């Protein structure tokens, strides 16, 4: 037992049953910085995207505002130029030479009117000025003038209002790049419209100042165009014009491969519009700069956050790792190191709880070890005591065997010698005494032998082998019959007794003692019957030996199996009173039970149970 306990405790030694747990998946130490970096990246990206959108729309809005302002100013500028020209024409129309030309004789041009027309036309090429009557026929014009009045419908405002003027659409003269326009004002004589003063001018002359102004307003990159509302003639500034793409849609558009924002504005008093387009690249350039800066900042922030996460996770995982190591050491049965975490947070509490637990576990282990040691000590002491008792018992048996028998032998021997050598001197009564002495000494020898056999039973180891009970019974009956062939017994032995498990020699002793008893106690019966069998009983299936002998009173049944207990007088039935005690001890040592059923004069039945053999028979 002692060694078993010891082996049990040592078999739980380091690392056998508790293996170090392998970590699967990413550790917190990796996950935390990764998670923080991811979170910061997402947050920064979202904020940047929102900011970018906002800034972009603001930039676009500002560009748009600038465009509207520029378009309006350009439109005002051009409108003012047109009105100044109209004012100049109206002043000329009010001169008396004009009305006079119309009311005077045809073909004789007054010199004053001619001078005025030439002054209006100026030195520039392509300029033409002419006077028309209300029938739209040219009455007088500068040299080679081919200009025509705008359509009649367009002229009607002039009749209603003396200060009105009419501007025609931009026209191109054939395939030439120059663009021209026609302007007409009324000529009145005493509040009556008598004719029209009209001029054709080439666009562009003297407009460079305008372009410079516009450039100053909205930047060099801006593209300025203007043309008819209908879009049929369209020209970029500065003139002399070249053919360009019309910019009519007030929106972001692609012009000559560049993304541009554009606005158009009508020019008051004319069928013209002016357009201003602004490339978006310069507008959005600061935005891109902002984006680059933001990305750089975000990268730096993410790196810092990951670093912070790594440091933070180290702060968390390092104590956790040492805790895990300590817990594993404890689980493996080693002594766990004391955790020294000077922290007041959850981890600090955990470590302190763990330390408490370690102390408890260590205490329990020590207590357990003390108990085991004590137990082992006690077992060793008991074993020693038992061994010593066993040795004493053996010595006692030896003494009994040797020392008690020797005097008995002397008693019987010398009694015999007395009878043999001194028979003549012995009276019959003295002779009787000597016989009694010899007989009782013999009986005592028998008692000693039986007692030794009985005590030896307690020390014999019981084998557990299958035993063929039929063979045992046959052998015992044969011996009994051979020992006293004068007795007549009717044997009734059950054909197939089930096999038992146990020590064959001892089980044979059981049957021998029971059957010898049966033979002995049927001695007075003329036709004795002895039955040996196997039957079901309330205490389980049992072997039994039944006789038709003298039986006994069941009130003495409890004394039946005691050593030296006898229920019959020595002169009726000889015996030492050990046989049934031996039966009882053998059956008990096999884990079975023995009991009897009897009545005086009615015979007796002895039952005993044994563990039955499941396997083959020995």
């Amino acid at each position, binding site marked *: 037992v002692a060694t078993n306990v010891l082996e049990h405790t040592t078999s739980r030694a380091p690392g056998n049953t508790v293996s170090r747990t392998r970590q699967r998946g990413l550790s917190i130490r990796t996950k935390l910085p990764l998670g923080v970096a991811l979170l910061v990246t997402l947050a920064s990206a979202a904020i940047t995207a929102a900011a970018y959108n906002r800034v972009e729309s603001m930039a676009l809005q500002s560009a748009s505002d600038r465009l509207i302002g520029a378009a309006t100013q350009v439109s005002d500028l051009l409108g003012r130029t047109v009105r100044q020209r109209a004012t100049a024409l109206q002043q000329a129309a009010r001169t008396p030479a004009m009305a006079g030309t119309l009311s005077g004789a045809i073909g004789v041009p007054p010199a004053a009117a001619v001078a005025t027309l030439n002054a209006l036309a100026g030195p520039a090429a392509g300029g033409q000025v002419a006077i028309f009557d209300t029938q739209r026929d040219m009455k007088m014009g500068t040299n080679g003038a081919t200009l025509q009045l705008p359509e009649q419908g367009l002229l009607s405002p002039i009749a209603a209002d003396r200060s009105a003027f009419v501007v025609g659409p931009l026209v191109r003269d054939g395939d030439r790049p120059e663009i021209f326009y026609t302007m007409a004002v009324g000529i009145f004589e005493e509040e009556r419209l008598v004719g029209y003063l009209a001029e054709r001018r080439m666009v562009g002359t003297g407009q460079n100042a305008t372009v410079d102004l516009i450039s100053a307003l909205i930047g060099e990159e801006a593209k300025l165009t203007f043309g008819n509302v209908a879009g049929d003639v369209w020209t970029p500034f500065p003139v002399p014009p070249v053919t360009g793409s019309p910019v009519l849609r007030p929106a972001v558009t692609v012009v000559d491969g560049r993304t541009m924002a554009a606005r158009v504005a009508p020019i008051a008093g004319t069928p013209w519009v002016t357009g201003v387009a602004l490339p978006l690249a310069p507008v959005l350039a600061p935005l891109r700069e902002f984006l680059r800066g933001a990305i750089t900042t975000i990268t730096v922030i993410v790196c810092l956050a990951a670093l912070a996460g790594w440091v933070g996770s180290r702060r968390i995982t390092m104590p956790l790792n040492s805790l895990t190591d300590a817990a594993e050491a404890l689980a493996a049965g080693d002594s766990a190191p004391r955790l020294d975490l000077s922290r007041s947070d959850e981890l600090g509490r955990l470590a302190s709880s763990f330390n408490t637990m370690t102390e408890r576990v260590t205490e329990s282990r020590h207590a357990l070890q003390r108990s085991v040691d004590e137990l082992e000590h006690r077992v060793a002491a008991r074993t020693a005591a038992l061994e010593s008792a066993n040795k004493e018992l*053996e010595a006692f*048996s*030896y003494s009994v*065997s*040797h*020392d008690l*028998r*020797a*005097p*008995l*032998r*002397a008693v*019987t*021997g*010398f*009694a*015999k*010698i007395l009878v043999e050598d001194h028979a003549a001197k012995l009276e019959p009564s003295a002779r009787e005494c000597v016989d009694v002495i*010899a007989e009782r*000494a*013999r009986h*005592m*020898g028998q008692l*000693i*032998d039986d007692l*030794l056999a009985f005590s030896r039973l307690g020390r014999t180891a019981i084998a557990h082998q299958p035993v063929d009970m039929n063979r045992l019974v046959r052998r015992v009956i044969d011996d009994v019959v051979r020992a006293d062939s004068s007795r007549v017994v009717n044997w009734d032995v059950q054909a197939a007794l089930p096999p038992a498990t146990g020590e064959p020699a001892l089980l044979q002793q059981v049957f021998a003692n029971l059957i010898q008893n049966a033979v002995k106690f049927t001695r007075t019966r003329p036709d004795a019957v002895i039955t040996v069998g196997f039957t079901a009983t309330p205490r389980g299936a049992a072997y039994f030996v039944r006789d038709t002998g003298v039986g006994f009173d069941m009130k003495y049944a409890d004394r039946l199996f005691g050593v030296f207990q006898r229920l019959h007088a020595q002169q009726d039935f000889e015996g030492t009173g050990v046989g049934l005690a031996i039966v009882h001890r053998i059956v008990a040592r096999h884990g079975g039970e023995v009991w009897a059923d009897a009545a005086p004069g009615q015979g007796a039945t002895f039952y005993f149970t044994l563990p039955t053999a499941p396997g083959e028979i020995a």
Partner: protein
Amino acid sequence: MTPAIAPEVEILLVDDDPHDVKLTLRALDQQHLANRVHVVQDGEEALEYLRDMARPRLVLLDLKLPKVSGLEVLAKVREDPKLKTLPVVILTSSREEPDVARAYDLGANSYIVKPVDFEQFLRAVSDVGMYWLLINQSPTT
């Protein structure tokens, strides 16, 4: 051979119990062997006798002896090249199984338990004497 004792000793009886000795001699007397028996009281005497005197034809050896036990005497006898073939019969009161086993292990020729009953004792001892001295042929050296 020089007969130190006349007549020639044929049996060495080793037993410390004078009553048992007397009974044994009486039993051997039935075979007329009693006057050719030399008796010693303990194992030491037995070994001395066997060393100094002529070799007997049979040793009747008790186990429980003063000084040197019967089993020790037997072991010494079997170790001696001159005596290892000497017939030794254990004649004892002990019927303990370890004694029997040890005796045979050491080379006893027989193991006889002295019966308590004198009739049986007489028969056993005289049978042993007759068998080993008259029936059985033993080597003389």
